[in-house]
């Protein structure tokens, strides 16, 4: 089976900042809006290099979203980035009407995704953003698994032909492991490990945990398939249905509420295409809390051990 090496921990936020900088270097239409927390959401590199294309709008997310729509209507490709909780909820109506209904090419960065934000606690841990963003018509929702992938997808978000894109990323340095030559395209799932007993469908930071679980399960003779879903919407239905047909069991893993996120998106596809049991790992309809990222991931069952035990329970039933 293929093994993935961690080249060293790196925050997905850093990958986002690099992707934004590359996009800005390649295309003068790219502009970035600052909502006060510029460095904290990965926009500082761009702001330093292109001060004339950086627009400071302060702590006013609703205005940031509407302003971005105005920029997009005038030929710019704007980004506004803030913590995912505020991007998706504080500005939700502006995103729905001014951005999505007008179907504008605006990139929305959602930082501090998941409980791995750590000590800031529940108010700042984005756990509902995927659910909110994926119900918006016209919206594309990205949730890359490591810093390298975040860089690639950020660039693709700017270079596509149009339409709004939400991309979520985290703060904590995490494994950076996706190989340079791994084909990465918005809308396509990535088959990281092939297997026939069960499919672990993961997104964001949880993909690395899913891989660790799969290695460990392999030693027990369970061949788990690992599918990385970096595009929650439009979701790769074909890859999911193929997994359902070929492995008959699915487990989803995400740093997000189990309601409305990746698990729901997968269940929607499976129930239409090829119904099989889907077990969902994520936040179980509750808020996060303060603690170190590692402590929180463990407490809420968002680690390889929890994935492994869930797989064992499911495959037992299968026999």
């Amino acid at each position, binding site marked *: 089976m293929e093994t993935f090496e961690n080249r060293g921990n790196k925050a997905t936020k850093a990958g986002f900042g690099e992707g934004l900088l590359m996009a800005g270097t390649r295309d003068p239409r790219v502009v970035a809006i600052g909502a006060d927390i510029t460095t904290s959401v990965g926009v500082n590199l761009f702001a330093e290099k292109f001060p004339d294309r950086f627009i400071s709008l302060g702590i006013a997310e*609703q*205005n940031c979203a509407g*302003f971005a729509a*105005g920029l*997009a209507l005038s030929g710019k490709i704007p980004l506004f980035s803030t913590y995912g909780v505020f991007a998706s909820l504080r500005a939700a109506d502006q995103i*729905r009407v001014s951005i999505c209904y007008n179907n504008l090419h605006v990139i929305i960065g959602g930082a501090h995704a998941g409980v791995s934000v750590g000590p800031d606690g529940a108010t700042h841990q984005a756990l509902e953003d995927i659910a909110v963003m994926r119900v918006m018509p016209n919206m594309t929702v990205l949730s890359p698994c490591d810093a390298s992938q975040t860089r690639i997808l950020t660039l693709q978000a700017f270079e596509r032909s149009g339409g709004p894109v939400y991309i979520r990323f985290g703060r904590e340095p995490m494994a950076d492991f996706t190989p340079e030559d791994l084909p990465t395209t918005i809308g396509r799932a990535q088959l990281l490990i092939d297997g026939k007993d069960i499919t672990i469908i993961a997104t964001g930071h949880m993909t690395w945990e899913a891989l660790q679980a799969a290695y460990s399960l392999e030693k027990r003779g369970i061949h788990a398939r690992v599918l990385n879903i970096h595009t929650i919407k439009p979701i790769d239905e074909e890859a999911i249905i193929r997994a359902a047909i070929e492995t008959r069991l699915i487990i989803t893993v995400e740093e997000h509420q189990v309601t409305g996120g990746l698990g729901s998106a997968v269940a929607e596809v499976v129930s239409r295409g090829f119904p099989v049991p889907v077990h969902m790992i994520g936040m179980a309809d509750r808020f996060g809390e303060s603690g170190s990222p590692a402590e929180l991931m463990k407490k809420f069952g968002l680690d390889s051990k929890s994935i492994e035990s869930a797989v064992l329970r499911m495959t037992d039933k299968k026999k």
Partner: protein
Amino acid sequence: MVSQPLSDPLQLKEIADDIRISVIRSLAEAGSGHLGGSLDLADIFATLYFSILRHDPENPAWPDRDRLVLSIGHVAPVLYATLAHVGYFPKEELMTLRKLGSRLQGHPGRDLGLPGIELSAGSLGQGLSVAAGMALAARMDGKTHKIYCVLGDGELQEGSVWEAAMAAAHHSLDNLVAVVDRNGVQIDGQTEKVLRLEPLHKKWESFGWSVLECNGHNHSDLLNIFRSASVLRGKPVVIIANTVMGKGVPSIEGDYRWHGKVPTKEQAVEFVKELVDRKIGG
């Protein structure tokens, strides 16, 4: 080609009344919608589209056109009627307002391809942010066109309007002109009873805007004020246009109950008659 601006206030008044007649008829045909505000904005819209805006109905996507962002989407009928009268699309289409498949959605929707619509909007409090973004983009690109944004007074109760007001002043967007339709009423009654807006002039001033005030039904006043607004530099400009809801139809003027109501077909005939009678009477 770019339409030739009119400068005769009497001619503008004629046009505004024609727009009002279209508004009444299209709303009666639609069976739902917002009559009051659509009527009171007719003078402002006639002045903007026939005198002030640099635009070209035959080339709605002209990059250097002035933009009008309608933040209060519910007065779409006055925007539609004005666009039809100024030549963006045939007037007959006004009678499809709010019908299935129509390009004239209840609140403006760009996706159906009606020419002249700059923004799909209708959720209050969003337009000024979009207009400010357009104004900054124009400045970045060294363009000289202006952005006009029409707001309702009740709409100013939305906090997001003031976020946008702060941003526009901070960035000194003097190519942005906001027009507040100060008719003093909203669905629940008088604005000052629902949630006080006064002192409105001082509020905008303290947010860093140049504030102008005018009679929103006097065409010479409107022409002068828009001309002054376009030469003021250094700050965004807001025009508080004092208006009377339902203006033009004496029997409903100032009555807040006509905010979100439409005439029956019989009433529409009556209202048009009132309007024409008053026109003749001067």
